[in-house]
């Protein structure tokens, strides 16, 4: 049963969301302030893990929280190597807020007030996308991309002696490119499939993530040999 951690300080909203998640068959846990959320999601390396199973399949995270805000929590999670998918909820729904949330490391973003069916669909979608990102690509446990080996199940990329942790979005983007090796994948398709955003959204997020992948994969990220830009169209991972 997927386990969801809800970080929300507004009691009524937390109770309503909790009720609906439980009806849909999720295990659920609620935290009401930013500092406890960080303690739970991004503990210092020497802090022993708390009782029970600490693993969480999805975090539903409010932005305005006492202690630490949602953006800071996602950042700390990612910095500490926690790549659990995050769905952000916030009263700010402008496109630039959405992009800021995504760039801080969230995987999806839902402005308040939201429709209950949409929230539940996003939750299902994120868990499904995580499962897709984590399934082995091309039927093999390890996927070779240039000089690197990618382990999608554990979201790890091994290059020489160096191991890089991939975020869910990085893994999904890489997987999309791997599955379509040799073909051009358009930016609109990437936005839709990886970010779950309207293909018309104006954002540099895709370019930024491609740059990150290049740093992991290429000998010289400034002169990409593997992950090529097809000007005005999209990106292509070359066949070897």
């Amino acid at each position, binding site marked *: 049963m997927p386990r969801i951690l809800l970080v929300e*300080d*507004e009691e*009524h*909203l937390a*109770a*309503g*969301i909790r*009720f*609906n998640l439980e*009806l849909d068959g999720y295990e659920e846990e609620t935290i009401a*302030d*930013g500092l406890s959320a960080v303690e739970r999601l991004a503990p210092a390396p020497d802090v022993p893990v708390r009782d029970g199973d600490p693993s969480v399949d999805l975090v539903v995270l409010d*932005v*305005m*929280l*006492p*202690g*630490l*805000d949602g*953006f*800071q929590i*996602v*950042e700390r999670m990612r910095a500490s190597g926690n790549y659990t998918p995050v769905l952000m909820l916030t*009263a*700010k729904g402008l496109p630039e807020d959405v992009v*800021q949330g995504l*760039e*801080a*490391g969230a995987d999806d973003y839902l402005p*308040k*007030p*939201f*429709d*209950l*069916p949409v929230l539940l669909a996003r939750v299902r979608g994120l868990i499904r996308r995580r499962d897709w990102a984590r399934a082995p690509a091309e039927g093999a446990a390890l996927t070779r991309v240039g000089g690197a080996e990618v382990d999608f199940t554990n979201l790890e990329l091994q290059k020489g002696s160096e191991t890089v942790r991939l975020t869910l979005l990085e893994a999904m983007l890489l997987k999309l490119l791997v599955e379509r090796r040799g073909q051009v994948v358009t930016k609109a398709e990437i936005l839709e499939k990886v970010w779950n955003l309207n293909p018309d959204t104006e954002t540099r997020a895709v370019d930024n993530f491609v740059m990150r992948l290049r740093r992991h994969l290429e000998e010289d990220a400034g002169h990409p040999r593997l992950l090529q830009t097809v000007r005005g169209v999209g990106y292509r991972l070359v066949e070897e």
Partner: protein
Amino acid sequence: MPNLSQLSRSRRPKWHYVAVGVGLIIVAVALTVAWQILAAPDSVPSRAVGPARAVVWFFGSLLFLLLIAGLVLIVILLLREVRLNERQSNFVSAVTHELKTPVSSLKLYLDTLEYRELSTDRRAEFYRTMRQDIERLNVTINNVLNAAMYTDRPVADPRPLDLARVARRAIELTVTRHQLPREAIRYEGPDGLRLAGDAQALETALLNLLDNAVKYSKDRVQIEVETWGDADGQAHVRVRDHGIGMSRAHLPFIFTRFYRIGAEVRRSRTGTGLGLFIVRAIVKGHRGTITADSPGPDRGSSFTISVPGLLGPEAEADAEAARA
């Protein structure tokens, strides 16, 4: 990589202008000093000093002083504008949160009622939650409207009222609204404290003070309300709590419109930054004063409203007669 400073990016350029202003003041002061040294009548051999030179020196110095005064004035105004701007953007953020949170909650519960099969008990619980959300919306809307309605102008139609009764009623309402035990708010004061004013407005002021006292209490709510009249014909109400208090640095600003302590995005208490502004406007409308005091963070705070025009029995009859 993510960049949190983007959050405040839009505010930074205004501070650049202030820095430029301060730089210009420094340049002007330096120029003035240079002018004093180079052009002062006694800096050149005495024979060359004619009355014309003294006049030039005098008017030159005057001009420099005016220039500096003008620059200082502009920078002060700019600073005030920048601060107001920041408070306003915090206010928009706070009101957005205060309006959208109950609306989101109402929508969530409506959706749940629509899409789920629910037991009667569960329905009753959800209706209760929704009613509380509507009450919260109502409080925010009233605050915004009151801030526009109560200005510092004197009360238009002062009527005799009993401040002690207004205080007791405000306590009653607060106890019900926050579902507090009766002993959470202690009252001490005379049976009657009569003066002329706007009872509704004074009740709003006291309700705001009591709301704050509850909101900023720690685990246990313990509030003392005291009313008294003095020989100078002033009526006083004091609301004292044992909550989180504040550092002295904040005291001068708390009655300013939109002022809130701390960063908006990680706020632990709800609010719009209008409550105390409204209180001050109402008290000023009664030609009164409001003072705040706190021994420091975590040591509680107290607010005292003082309003002149305490009525004796005769004065009250006169006032009634005058009105009739």
